[in-house]
């Protein structure tokens, strides 16, 4: 069973608050959800909406079509009529007699003199629609607001609840989850991954949709003994992270494409001076300012080749909120192991999707620093044939003196223009890439093993594709998907085991130029036969992918 709730209205009308109440109820009920914020680049007004897909199994994708639409103003009501399933319900805070619309308005509601009463009635209505017990509304009384407001909210919700109590209710297959469930979005997961990895310093400049990482870390900096600093610009943010990382503190920065563009030179500095830097690019649609609050996966090739010259780097693209946590954690170990910058690519979809997911396991996580604390005579910080475990930083012992340099440099970190040094430095970079390759995770194959069509997806789209495969397999389609979370370096043979004669490769990406498809061809020689792309700033949905795949599968019959 799966139900999709949409809450639409203007910025400032309480969409987020309403969604949070619903999320909490859903979770307490023991159900799963994924809720995604679809908002404009403005502070008040406009048309925004949150889509909440609720299910008795974990959810990786929203549905575009609402089963229940809560419209908080006139404009939203118009949208509701277009985006609600034929058998769906539309509740509006407007007065209406139009058929198909149910008004939440009543004299009793008006009597509650509170500007949010309509929204709260909507929360009640949703609770009733989903078949929840009335006491699930209790949260409305336990908030940071005043007692009066809490009571008014609860009253309004009760009115909405009453109105929808008698509609048909979904029958949930409730089962106790194996593991305790937590509720968070992709940005928070990245932040938690960094904390788990022992990051001490985070420095960034505000930029949608990445600001949430900094905001969470800032809120927690006291308990986590971190220092979180808003930089004057993104160049400073990354340089400061490098400064800290090269002095022994795990450090990170985060931004979106425009900010990452500004960090490109510094990235090369981290690489050539072998500083373990972690940076997260939360992608949004470009070019340039693009669509600040929307989603896209169009920074991949840019991220892979950003900065002048050639150097070792790692690119990871978590496929889900939970993966975002573990991948970020792993990023720090990889960065310190190979002394390379690690770039994490997420996107607005992942960043602004809140989900229920298994509580992260910290038992098995181990911080591995690969530093050298033993005193060493004539220590060579940058020995050309020493890749792992030789790292010292200033102050790590009482005798070493450490040099960090942005030029071609010798084993001590001092500028050199010698030909052999130049060659050796380059070869070290290339050798690292080979070693890293062995350490990265292989892509995950999901779906039936006798597939005829193989979808390929990376990052957040892979999460959605996973759900699409399940649906396709349920429909009897012989489809599988290869899901990439670890992106680069990439093995020339990565597809060998999967792309067999008779298999049609379908590339699925949130961009127009099939960047991952290009990368695969570049590295493996395999070119996808078909592709499914979305680049209107909105996320894929599993259902949308299923529909596109059905067309493709039918074509080839």
């Amino acid at each position, binding site marked *: 069973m799966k139900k999709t709730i949409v809450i639409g209205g203007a910025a400032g009308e309480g969409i987020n608050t309403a969604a949070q109440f619903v999320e909490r109820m859903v979770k307490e009920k023991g159900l799963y959800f994924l809720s995604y914020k679809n908002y404009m680049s403005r502070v008040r007004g406009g048309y925004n909406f949150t889509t909440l897909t609720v299910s008795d199994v974990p959810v990786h994708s929203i549905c575009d079509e609402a089963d229940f639409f809560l419209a908080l103003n006139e404009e939203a009501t118009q949208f509701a009529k277009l985006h609600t399933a034929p058998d769906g319900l539309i509740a509006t805070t407007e007065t209406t007699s139009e058929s198909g619309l149910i008004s939440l308005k009543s004299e009793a509601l008006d009597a509650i003199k509170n500007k949010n009463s309509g929204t709260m009635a909507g929360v009640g209505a949703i609770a009733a629609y989903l078949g929840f017990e009335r006491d699930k509304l209790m949260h409305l009384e336990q908030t940071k607001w005043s007692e009066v407001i809490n009571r008014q909210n609860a009253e309004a919700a009760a009115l909405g609840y009453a109105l929808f109590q008698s509609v048909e209710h979904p029958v949930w297959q409730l089962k106790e989850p194996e593991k305790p*469930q*937590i509720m*968070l979005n992709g940005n*928070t997961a990245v932040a*938690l991954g960094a*904390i*788990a*990895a*022992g990051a*001490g*310093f985070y420095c960034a400049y505000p930029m949608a949709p990445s600001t949430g990482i900094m905001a969470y870390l800032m809120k927690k*900096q006291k*308990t*986590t*003994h*971190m*220092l979180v*600093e808003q*930089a*004057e*610009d993104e*160049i*400073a*943010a990354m*340089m*400061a*992270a*490098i*400064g*800290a*990382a*090269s*002095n*022994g*503190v*795990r*450090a990170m920065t985060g931004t979106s494409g425009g900010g990452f563009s500004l960090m490109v*030179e*510094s990235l090369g*500095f981290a690489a050539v001076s072998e500083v373990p830097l972690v940076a997260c690019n939360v992608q949004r649609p470009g070019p340039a300012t693009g669509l600040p609050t929307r989603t896209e996966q169009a920074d991949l090739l840019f991220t892979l080749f950003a900065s002048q010259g050639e150097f070792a780097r790692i690119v990871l693209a978590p496929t889900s909120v939970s993966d975002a946590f573990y991948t970020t*954690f792993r990023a720090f170990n990889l960065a310190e192991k190979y002394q390379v910058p690690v770039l994490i690519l997420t996107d607005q979809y992942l960043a602004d999707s809140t989900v229920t997911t298994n*509580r*992260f396991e*910290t038992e098995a*996580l*181990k*911080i591995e620093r690969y530093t050298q604390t033993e005193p060493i005579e004539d220590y060579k910080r940058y020995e050309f044939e020493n890749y792992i475990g030789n790292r010292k930083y*200033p*102050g790590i012992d*009482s005798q*070493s*003196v*450490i*040099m*960090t*340099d*942005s*030029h071609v440099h010798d084993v001590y970190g*001092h*500028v050199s223009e010698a030909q052999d040094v130049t060659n050796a430095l380059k070869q070290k970079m290339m050798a690292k890439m080979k070693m890293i390759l062995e350490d990265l995770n292989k892509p995950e194959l999901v779906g039936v093993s006798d597939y005829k069509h193989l979808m390929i997806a990376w990052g957040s789209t892979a999460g959605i594709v996973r759900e699409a495969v399940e649906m396709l397999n349920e429909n009897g389609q012989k489809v599988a998907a290869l899901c990439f979370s670890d992106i680069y370096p990439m093995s020339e043979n990565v597809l060998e085991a999967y792309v067999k004669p008779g298999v049609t490769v379908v590339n699925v990406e949130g961009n127009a130029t099939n960047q991952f498809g290009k990368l695969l061809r570049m590295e493996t020689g395999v070119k996808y036969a078909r592709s499914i792309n979305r680049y209107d700033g909105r996320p894929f949905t599993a259902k949308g992918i299923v529909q596109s795949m059905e067309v493709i599968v039918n074509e080839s019959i």
Partner: protein
Amino acid sequence: MNPFKLNTKTTWCPGCGNFGILESLSQVLEEASLKPQDVLVVSGIGQAAKLPHYIHAHGMNTLHGRAVPAAMGAHVANPALKLILTSGDGDTYGEGGNHLLHGIRRNLDIVHMVHDNQVYGLTKGQGSPTTAFGQVTRLQYDGMKSDPLNPMAFAISVGCGFVARSFSGDPKHLKEIIKAAMAYKGYALIDILQPCVSFNQVNTFKWYKDRVFKLPETYDPHDKVRAFEMAQQFGDEGIPIGILYQEQKTDFLGRFSHLEKPLVQYERSPKAVDTLLDELL
């Protein structure tokens, strides 16, 4: 033997003012009884910025214009290291202008020595932000078209708590100023007049020598408006050297009360997230 001295050959031109600055810095560090392991010298890119390669101490030779934020990161990681920033006028006031401004706003605890030769040395003689209006350079054949930046007035206006000028040709004075800057807790900016014998034929050793004068003993560096006024003087009317402005205020790390020790000293564990995860249950 001064432990900060290296035998490395420099790539500086014979007669360059940079030698005097390197020498003075090394002496001050030794006289402060510091060890090379206690000091981190950060720079950007330029002739001046090569200094970290010529001194025996921890060093970071970063990117053109980016020394200040790199120094900030290093400092928050490990404030136990005495932090020296040594870079050129182009690096500091040109490419790096924004970082200087905001580094000062943070009041980082740093000694920032600007080798101000009023020219881009390493790239062979283009005008820098401090090159005089109208001055002809190896690129500006028709003379500079921008008004020169006044580093002293700038620093005072954006709230720098230690604003000084010295001259590489007066090592005694320079050492005194560096010492005072090292004793100051907060952002200490020293603009050091430094003749570039290869590319600046106007602001020569003699040119500076003939114009610099020490601020009188009676000068009170705590009056901001007076300091601003004093900072207006430059060029043929004479160039005041010394501490133009000084004011005590809490330094950057002093503003974060939740840290009990340098970040680098915290032992960390993945378990730290457990209580945070509980909040999300």
